């Protein structure tokens, strides 16, 4: 007890030095812990979603881009494929195709145009409001609702993009009709609309009136808080009848089509159908693609571990030196203590108490940090995945 008492007195008196040591050691312990937690969570998250998504149909190109776009709504823009491909899957009778259209965003979140089948497939439940019903409506993920502080009754406006270089295509204001219950997946960060609504944003479908004008925006009707948007369109009961689509739906684009085969055999047959090297489409298995990605992440992690180990050795050597120097500085105290009658063991215990206290505090800090990381890992990993892609 006395040794601890003195150790505390010493550490408190030299608080700045103690703090630096505690933080340095804490960091050395924390970094590998945190990376381990984040990596295993990423692996779990990535793998879980990939495993839950049997097949993805997309245009030929990077399988990773396609997978990231279809699973995590990343900013990759794989070449779109025509809806006829989804219809072909229907006609095959081998699986359910679920198109996703992820070319647009709103408030920094992806607008995911899809069909109602997606909600059933992902088992998404509405926590507030209702599901999609009418063209132009949006159902938002839990994180979107929290981040944008929007809910049922509010509206979102698609970010203006000149992707397709179409004149006269204005951003679309979409009423929020529902908020999804959180799932800790990319679905929490998505703005879901009917794929037909996505086509309206793209300019394939449009109405014949009612672009909200600059003067209305100036009058305070702006819901975007984005000065760059001066005009946008809005689908209302009054103008919905004038909305129409140009061309055949079969030619309308989707970013990817999630394919859920009815059974293993159907999956095998389907995969066989898209093996043609001359074909313009590919059918990928997300589990395999993500497995490769995870392998790569873990190879990088091994490197990271080595770096961490080297840094840890260096830092521990520095800490050891600091401790040793402080022992040297206290030679006088030790001599005094011995003269007064302290055992040699007492002196050692005193110094050990200090070192152990330091390590304990560092460990606590590292553990607290690790606990914080662990608790938020899923959210942060979701964010990292969205960010890094």
């Amino acid at each position, binding site marked *: 007890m006395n040794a601890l008492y003195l150790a505390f007195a010493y550490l408190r008196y030299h608080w700045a030095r103690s703090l630096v040591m505690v933080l340095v050691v804490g960091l050395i312990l924390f970094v590998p812990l945190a990376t381990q937690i984040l990596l295993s969570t990423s692996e779990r998250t990535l793998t879980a979603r990939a495993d839950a998504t049997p097949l993805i149909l997309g245009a030929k190109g990077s399988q990773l881009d396609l997978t990231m776009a279809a699973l995590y709504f990343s900013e990759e823009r794989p070449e779109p494929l025509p809806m006829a491909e989804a219809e072909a899957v*229907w006609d095959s*009778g081998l699986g*359910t*195709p*679920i198109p996703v259209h992820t070319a647009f965003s709103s408030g920094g979140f992806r607008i995911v145009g899809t*069909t*109602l*089948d997606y909600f*059933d497939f992902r088992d998404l439940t509405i926590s507030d409001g*209702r*599901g*999609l*019903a*009418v*063209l132009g*409506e949006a159902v938002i993920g839990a994180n979107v609702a929290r981040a944008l502080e929007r809910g049922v009754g509010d509206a979102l406006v698609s970010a203006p993009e000149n992707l397709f270089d179409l*004149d*006269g295509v204005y951003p679309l204001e979409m009423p929020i009709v529902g908020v999804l219950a959180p799932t800790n997946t990319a679905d929490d960060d998505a703005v879901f609309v*009917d794929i*037909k609504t996505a086509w309206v944003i793209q300019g394939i479908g*449009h109405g*014949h*009136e009612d*672009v909200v004008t600059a003067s209305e925006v100036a009058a305070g009707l702006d819901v975007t808080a984005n000065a760059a948007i001066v005009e946008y369109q809005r689908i209302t*009961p009054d103008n*919905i*009848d004038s*909305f*129409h*689509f*140009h061309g055949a739906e079969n030619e309308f684009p989707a970013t990817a089509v999630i394919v859920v085969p009815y059974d293993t055999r159907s999956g095998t047959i389907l995969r066989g159908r898209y093996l043609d090297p001359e074909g313009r489409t590919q059918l990928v298995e997300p589990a395999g693609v993500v497995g490769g990605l995870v392998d790569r992440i873990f190879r990088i992690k091994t490197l990271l571990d080595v770096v961490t180990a080297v840094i840890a050795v260096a830092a521990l050597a520095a800490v050891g030196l600091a401790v040793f120097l402080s022992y040297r500085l206290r030679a006088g105290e030790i001599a005094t203590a011995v003269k007064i009658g302290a055992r040699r063991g007492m002196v050692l215990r005193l110094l050990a108490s200090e070192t152990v206290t330091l390590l304990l505090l560092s460990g606590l800090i590292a553990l607290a940090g690790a606990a914080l990381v662990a608790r938020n890992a899923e959210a942060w990993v979701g964010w990292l995945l969205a960010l890094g892609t």
Partner: protein
Amino acid sequence: MARLLAVLATMLFAAGAAAAPDRPRVVAVNYALAYIAERLLGDAAEVVYPVPDGTDPSFWRPSIADISAIQSADLILLNGAGFATWTAKVSLPRSKLVDTSRGLADRLIATETVTHSHGDGGEHSHEGTASYTWLDPEIALRQAQAVANALKARGLEDEGRVDDRLALLAADLAALDAAADEALGALSTTVFVATHPRYQYLARAYGLTILSLEWEAGAAPTGDELAELRQLVAERGAEVLIWEAEPPEGARAAIAELGLQDAVFPPLAVEPPAADFVAAFAAGIEAIAAAASRAESG
């Protein structure tokens, strides 16, 4: 032990009985498809035609509650061919949708082109499609086959029973076709006028000439509308007017004054009064054939 099993069995039976009212629901966007579905399903599922009485299903706009009820159906039968434009503006589960005219693109009839412009986008055109496909019994049969396939694929009714019922329906439609051939086949010289453009497929199937007006449904014709009809009589030699439904008092007399015969042929997008699809179709054929013969004998 035996008693426990008996109790369990009773409970299971009770649960099964309680679940029985939960019959599958099939939604059809028009009466023709609802009729086909009912014929094919028997009691195996509840067939719902969601459009309220007195509303033209082509122009119906469902409420959110209607949409929600339709979304939760087990199967949603669309007519395609541009019928029921609301279906393009509503979110429906693609896995439940069946477009019954899919694969019949080559049999569809294009209507005149509408050209318009909006904003600074310049002019562009919309090509329309005639929607009342089922008025050609052959197309109706193809649509029935599509419905039958969907019912079987989704296991809403036993395949054998569906096939049996489809055979019966096909026979009825074939009989209808034969009767129409017989009654209308020789009327290629008669000029018909319809109060609405509904009969394109009927006309093509039996070589009829059916001009069309755009009269206010269910109302007595106005002076302008009658003038338009008079012009058709003078310029095109129109002889028989086809009503969609029994016209209001006095309207018939106004037609007769123009020297026209008239007949009622319900286009069967909504349920006709006091008859089913086949019977109403047959009656319509007879009615216009009779009107044509009255016009001949003048």
